[in-house]
């Protein structure tokens, strides 16, 4: 199982949860799983071409997936995925 940290922005849509355990072999699959469980989540995270929005940052084990393989970044059991808004900091 992969551990997903849910940002406050999505918690209402995700039933108030701040963490979830999901089965997924890649970041893209994880987003799909999340969407199947909580309808509408994918539209918040991705644009109409299915790309993760520029306003969303995704980390796998604290590494930004844009430096890895983006949605193709592989996941294995025990990995931690974190989603945060890009508009913070600085």
């Amino acid at each position: 199982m992969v551990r997903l940290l849910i940002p406050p922005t999505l918690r209402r849509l995700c039933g108030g949860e701040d963490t979830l355990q999901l089965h997924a072999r890649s970041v893209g699959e994880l987003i799909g799983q999340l969407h199947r469980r909580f309808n509408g989540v994918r539209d918040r995270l991705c644009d109409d071409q299915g790309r993760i929005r520029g306003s969303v940052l995704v980390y796998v084990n604290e590494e930004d997936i844009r430096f890895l393989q983006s949605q193709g970044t592989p996941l294995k059991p025990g990995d931690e995925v974190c989603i945060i808004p890009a508009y913070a900091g600085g």
Partner: protein
Amino acid sequence: MSNGNGFMKALKCRECGHEYPLGATHVCEFDFGPLEVAYDYERIAKTLTRDVIRSRPQTMWRYRELLPIAGEPSVGRQVGYTPLVRADRLARRLGIRELWIKNDAVNYPTLSFKDRVVSVALSRSVELGFRTVACASTGNLANSVAANAASAGLHCFVFIPHDLEQGKVLNSLIYGASVIGIRGHYDEVNRLCAEIAGKYPWAFVNVNMRPYYAEGSKSMGFEIQEQLDWRIPEHTVVCMASGSLLTKIHKSYQEFSKLGLVPATKWKIHGAQATGCNPITQAHKAGLDFFKPQKPNTIAKSLAIGTPADGFYALRVMKETGGSGDDVTDDEIREGIRLLAECEGIFAETAGGVTVGVARKLIASGRIPADSSAVLCITGNGLKTLDAVAGHVGQTREIKPSLREFEALLARENPQLVSA
């Protein structure tokens, strides 16, 4: 201000326009777009006139209708109204007709422009009932949050990259804040703070309080216009970390024009970065609307943000105003610091060296024409980044307490000063 929200109407998503109540939230639920404070400009126009502004104390709060708090500021009441210095010697060196330095290196209380954004963020945090405040910082923000939180009796946590300049670390510790050094670069600090902000009921000035925080930067632009005798400068050069300051300087020019406080003239805003961390200027030079994230490697640690939160909007402002963007190497940064210090007696931190260095390039290349006028925004004091210039500014010459030895030294090094 009779309305319970001052002159603020709502928080509004910059992307889709959804509106939210004026609480501690910074991101749209529908598309993760940034939330921005929406104002009642009609009411502001009836209150905020040049005469009213002139009648108020010389602080950033003379423009308070355009700053996002409901009542009077409770934190940082003395911040701002820093000098706008006419820089004729530097203008001659750079080859431009007229040059001004907006000198936030002497801002109160912590010698950087961050005191502006913190004054707003903490005043608003107090209005919303927070007792603990925090930030992710490359240094100056931590100093300001620590100092201003202390003055307001608030608990304070600041999160910084562990390898920041010693001056900046001490300048946060001295105020009694909890200073947490993260073994990583700033973007990793930022990610951690987003996670902490999602768990603890704290006011993170640049996370959940970001819509209010960001607006404080407009005060720098308001002051520039007033200090230029109510006009917008032709060219403004602004250094970029997240890109927020550049976008808010632009907004300040738009707001004063809209309210009729200044004539509606054209302006160009130029962005400056360090070559070792230049996601925005690199995208600008490539003609792109989006930036690619980077891992920073520059002595300009205050600008070392590889994923700039407002990068997209800063690119848009540069494009829409016809401004340009460029970046400078570490050596060029040091040269910029020296140039400003030697010509105008202003000692800026590395970000200031970036601004001067890039201004030099823009003028030399004609992107800022020689016969024009420009303002350089200097954002922090050189005393905070001594490490960056140590070993690069010459050395003292040591002599015995002997007039003969001194005159021998003078004859060797400054023969033109030797009297007959």
